């Protein structure tokens, strides 16, 4: 099942998270928006690592994949919250 969570982060940027899950596992994840991340390709890594993860492992996966990444216009917390919203 594919679900979407999108918002303009307060004081930040527009973020849209699209997550598909099946049988308690994430099957696909796409994060888009007009935010900034340095380095940028860290987000391809997060999306890749989320695929195949049990739905209760979102926090750990995002935190480890984005460790050392500078985010501008959204926070890791925003991202985790939005991914979890898609899995509710």
């Amino acid at each position, binding site marked *: 099942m594919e679900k979407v969570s999108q*918002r*303009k982060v307060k004081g*930040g*940027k527009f973020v*849209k998270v699209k997550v598909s899950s099946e049988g308690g596992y994430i099957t696909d994840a796409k994060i888009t928006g*007009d935010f*900034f*991340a340095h*380095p940028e390709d860290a987000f391809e890594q997060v999306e890749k690592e989320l695929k195949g993860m049990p739905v209760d492992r979102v926090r750990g996966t995002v935190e480890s994949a984005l460790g050392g990444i500078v985010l*501008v216009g959204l926070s890791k917390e925003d991202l985790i919250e939005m991914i979890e919203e898609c899995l509710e």
Partner: protein
Amino acid sequence: MDRLRVLGFSVFEPTVNMALDEAIAEAVGSAKSPPTLRFYGWSPSAVSIGYFQEIHEEVDLEFCHSNGIEVVRRITGGGAVIHTKGELTYSFTVCDKDPAVPQDIQGSYMRICAPIVSALRGLGADAVFAPINDIEVGGKKISGNAQTRRFGAVLQHGTILIDLERGMLRALKVKREKLQDRGADSVGNRLITLKEILGRDLRPGELSSAIVKEFRKHFKCKVEYGKASPIELCRVPAIAERHKSIDWLFRR
């Protein structure tokens, strides 16, 4: 940063503009070129979207196609920008170890936008830096800026509105969430141009010279007008080819 190479205003195809910024960043990041400030225009007109943006969410592709507007994806994050006649684009590239630019992202936007704000003020526009990455006059956006750090360089490019073909704004699909947050009811209301503020037209060169002068003051550096180097130019075709690919443009 004791000297700054300036590449004067020139008009290129959209993918060549993206490729030149990237080729310059590669050369500056590996100390093969000095810090560089480049000014450019776009022909044909184009929409550039941010690295993380979903193309179908941001761009009316049909409108672009029927109006001869090209679409490119930037290597920098941020939002969609329309580049038409009357819009001046700049790029500033410096080695990422250069103490002239703070490591902190927000601080570095402020630092690099400061000479642009000063130049606009000098011309008579009451410009202020508006975090995260905009310059505004009277609460309306006149300039948007975007940064990346790769190849050992900091690259910041941005747009400054001298004039705007407002009809072209239909190329952008702007989200209601974003406009409401800014207290505007359409993207046109959210933007302001130098021509509207000053009540006169301005050549791109008039604005770019004012910006160059302010960079020299703010960074206390020597300015040398120059050209793209052979190392940079020979990288352009391959990078432009990547920017033309469906894989890159539609990756999100």
